[in-house]
């Protein structure tokens, strides 16, 4: 295809490494095309008008002015373009990402809980039993129990909690249940085209499918206090084997 026509390539977007990022990036290119076209129609016309009708060249103004229907066509064009963007791209994309019906099943996915706090990301894995242990705020202790796991809950015993380290396997959907302990943060995986506010009192689900292995960062996009600028975590996408090895190593360390 005419790759050079795809504006996406010129926007300086970060690397794209999740299944849905192509869709979002394509939209980004298209909407910027619309903007560019509008601007490139108007700007030269604007400059030409200023030049053509300057007082020294056109001392007597024409009371009636422009008569063509060009403006109507242009306005209809904008409306049509926006409708296309809206109904062919924006709404369907949002539906795949946010409608509950379209979520991958938990069995086929890597499920983690992410609990944000000032200024760190706690990543909670269910452990070998695949069940998340219950949490209680009154048990939170910054050093020993950052997310307040209940020690007497059998499901909690094997749970794994990492700080600022998120690891997932490639090519398998990742479901994140996102929440926060204190203020609003925004969980951002730039390369996955994921951004979701973490809001205390709400547990918000999101999913994405990494399609490439690599090491990236988790950024916080919402102002959350003095440490907002340094609230960074690390995000690693492994091969399936690599992920299993990482998990094993973590369990071993936790068990020891």
């Amino acid at each position, binding site marked *: 295809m005419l790759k050079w026509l795809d504006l996406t390539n010129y926007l300086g977007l970060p690397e794209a490494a999740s299944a849905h990022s192509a869709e*979002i990036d394509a939209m980004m290119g298209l909407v910027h095309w619309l903007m560019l076209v509008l601007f490139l129609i108007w700007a030269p016309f604007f400059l030409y008008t*200023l030049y053509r009708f300057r007082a020294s060249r056109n001392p007597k103004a*024409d009371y009636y002015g422009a008569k063509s229907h060009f403006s109507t066509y242009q306005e209809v064009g904008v409306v049509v373009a926006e409708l296309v963007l809206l109904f062919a791209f924006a709404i369907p994309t949002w539906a795949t990402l946010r409608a509950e019906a379209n979520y991958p099943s938990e069995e086929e996915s890597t499920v983690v809980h992410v609990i944000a706090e000032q200024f760190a990301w706690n990543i909670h894995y269910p452990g070998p039993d695949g069940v998340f242990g219950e949490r209680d705020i009154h048990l939170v202790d910054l050093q020993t129990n950052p997310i307040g796991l209940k020690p007497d809950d059998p499901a909690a015993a094997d749970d794994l909690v990492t700080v600022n380290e998120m690891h997932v396997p490639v090519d398998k959907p990742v479901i994140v249940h996102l929440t926060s302990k204190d203020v609003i943060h925004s969980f951002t995986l730039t390369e996955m085209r994921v951004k979701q506010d973490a809001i205390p009192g709400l547990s918000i689900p999101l999913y994405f499918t990494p399609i490439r292995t690599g090491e990236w960062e988790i950024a916080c996009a919402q102002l959350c206090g003095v440490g*907002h600028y340094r609230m960074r975590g690390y995000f690693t996408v492994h091969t399936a084997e690599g992920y299993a090895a990482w998990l094993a190593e973590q369990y071993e360390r936790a068990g020891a």
Partner: protein
Amino acid sequence: MADHAAVPEGHHGEDGHHESFWRKYIFSTDHKVIGIQYGITSLLFLLFGFSLVMLMRWQLAYPGQPVPLIGWLFSDDTMPGGIMLPEFYNQLGAMHGTIMVFLGIVPLAVGAFGNYVVPLQIGAPDMAFPKLNMASYWVFFVGGVIMLGSFFVPAGAAKAGWTSYAPLSVIESMGQTMWLISMVFLITSSLLGAVNFLTTIVQLRADGMGFMQMPFFVWAQFITSFLLLLAFPPLEAAAVLQLSDRLLDTSFFMPSGLVVSGEVVDVAGGGSPLLWQHLFWFLAHPEVYVLVLPAMGIVAEIIANNARKPLKGYKVLVYSLVFLGFMSFIVWAHHMFITGMGQVMSTFFQTTTMIISVPSVIILTALFLSLWGGSIRFTTPMLFALGFLPMFGIGGLTGLPLGLAATDIPLHDTYYVIGHFHYVVAPGTILALMGGIYYWFPKMTGRTMNDTLGKIHFWGTLVSMNFIFFPMLIQGLAGVSRRLYDGGQIYAHAQDVLVYNEVMSIAAWVLFVFQIPFIVNLLVSMKKGKAAADNHWNATTLEWSAAPSPPVGHGNFRDLPTVYRDPYEYSHPDHDEDYWPQDVPPAEASEN
């Protein structure tokens, strides 16, 4: 409309009695004096807001390096050794946003221009409620003082951004309380002002001036006032709720089970952080149109006058404006796509957002087409008005990818958003307002501003602003978050675009340098400018044609004018001169 019973004609002589200095300049009820009070105060606030951001730009360009020259002036809680602390950066950011929006642009665009120009343009002796008008200025003033005072309370001013999202804002220090109290004052002031403007425009139009004979600027103020009137109260409610959360320990915005730095927060819980966002944006989206509509009105006036022809499609412009005003109430949650919105809500808000962009396109197109066939005079105000058009164009167009929820995912809370709205408010609104100053200065003072200095000011401002705000779009596309104390130093994805931080900062300081000719020009021209004719620009609207420059004391006009025609009858084929003022009776001016 013959009912003039209540208007004693030719009443000025009696008004000549000596008024005390206080009544005349401080607690004046004359809309012109109040307009100028608003103007001076808000320009000072703009300058102050700009200074705050110039400090921030140092930290963004050279993170962790001591601020040169003035760094030592600051206390150790803010900049020990001249090095800015992150707390202080956050204060500066929140206060910059708040001050620019609520204490800079709104009072300048509505308080100053609206007050000064609207009654004159509609041929009214004053605002409908002069005392209320005075009260609205002083309430605003008190709000401003409280806002400034908040820098001096323990732990400094508000640091939760101009959006004051809960729960952060609720657990922040005392500055936030001051912020809320100040906002209650500012909102109240705007409400009083809005009631006054609406009554004035509806009730005090001169004989013969129907709604469709009003200058476009008056229409813009009219719709703006509606936005203020109906969008501000929910934020007032929200401010009261947040105050109560802070002072009475209620939990309207505090969910159960908050743990801040390891300690369980002792509140009842059960509140919703999102409630604050809804109430805030219910105001703040209409608010952004409050920032831009008066600017559009000013631009329309200047363009019609300097192209020497009527505005293209006046009626379409008006209808678009009304529609825009109405729609602006139902798009607010496009600021909240990333808060976990489902399919139904996001579809609704994306659609309304796309719909609202259409009237803007129509307005801009109509303003452009008004130039076609004109005889364009490139006066200083005209340059500013022309600068507004493409700049607002860029700003508005960059709103589109934000308005589509899917593309908003990567862009939300990045510098793309910052770039988007600064293009609309800075090279957009600020240019237009400056154009307005150059345009109405002769009216206010009877003198003109220096043209050369004006042109230097224009080109310097236009160019440097683009060097500030265009790189923001680039950074945003690369994914750099906003409100970062170090400008994104630590993030890998930001490395390629970090160079722009220095470019933008230098451009911001250059921008400041180019404001000096403006300030000098403004101050010097007041006393020493060339004397201006009453109708300096050969304009058609009443403020120029029916009143002397500057207008006489209380009451504005010797006799209240009567309107005979549409507002922009420039170069009319049936009239010899190229302008045909609204109040010139037909028989006198031409034979037909």
